[in-house]
């Protein structure tokens, strides 16, 4: 079971790293790059990217976050409070390009913050889950 959990986390981490690399290479890493990239995108172009993300990332998030239920070191109410920021960042990350394309260029800052926050949050979550798994043998 530990090997499967490790493989799951390693694959998701690899996939996230690929996503971050793709983002930096195609969009850029400054808010002005992000605003310029999404300002020229058509609705169909935005949907082409966001639909697969909206269908697959919630499943990956559920697969990761439900493992929090096994963390005995956290109280149940604290565990469920940890879940909200992940999905809020996900929604902000995925929906902000639509706002940028509508002319709200300042949303590029929100896009950057939510994207980086989401990736770092996932990395932290997997680190906690992995270390707990190997320490406790659960």
């Amino acid at each position, binding site marked *: 079971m530990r090997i499967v959990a490790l493989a799951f986390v390693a694959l998701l981490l690899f996939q996230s790293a690929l996503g971050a690399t793709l983002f930096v290479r195609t969009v850029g890493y400054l808010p002005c790059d992000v605003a310029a990239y999404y300002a020229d995108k058509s609705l169909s172009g935005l949907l082409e990217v966001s639909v697969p993300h909206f*269908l697959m990332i919630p499943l990956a998030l559920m697969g990761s976050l439900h493992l929090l239920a096994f963390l005995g070191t956290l109280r149940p109410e604290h565990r469920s409070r940890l879940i909200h920021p992940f999905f809020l960042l996900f929604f902000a990350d995925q929906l902000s390009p639509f706002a940028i394309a509508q002319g709200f260029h300042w949303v590029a800052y929100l896009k950057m913050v939510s994207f980086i926050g989401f990736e770092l949050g996932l990395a932290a979550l997997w680190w906690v889950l992995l270390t707990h798994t190997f320490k406790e043998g659960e």
Partner: protein
Amino acid sequence: MKFMVSKKLSDNPTMKTTLLWMLAALVAGLSLSVAAKLGEYGASPSAWSAAVLGSEADFTEPLGLDELLLRVHSDLFGLIFVYVVVGGLVMRLNYRTRTKIALMAASLGSLLLYPALLLAPWGGGIAVCVGIGGVLGFHLLMGCYALLIALALWKRSL
């Protein structure tokens, strides 16, 4: 996944919160997917046929079998995962077994109609309407089931 074996999901705050957020994201994803399909093919059966089979009036070429295969293959990949996860939760709803089987059969049937789009080069407009109607119906059913599951979680009956 723990939700398959947990006795009562709504009693576990972690599972309940995770599943409610996941269902909200899936409903948003399914809505965006429908918007993408309507943008790609149009909003009426005649527009679907013109988009897939081509139209002399609009100077559009028909979509080739390879293009149709690529679209159906990449769409089915995500939709099958959605079906399995939502289906796993539907089977835990507090309904009669026959009702749950009927719900799952209806959604599976609509999903399996989508590959009829591949028959468009031979079946013409009928195959196009069956395929695109099927996948849009699947989105609608999955959205409704997700709302039913969210309601059951909210009312603590799941």
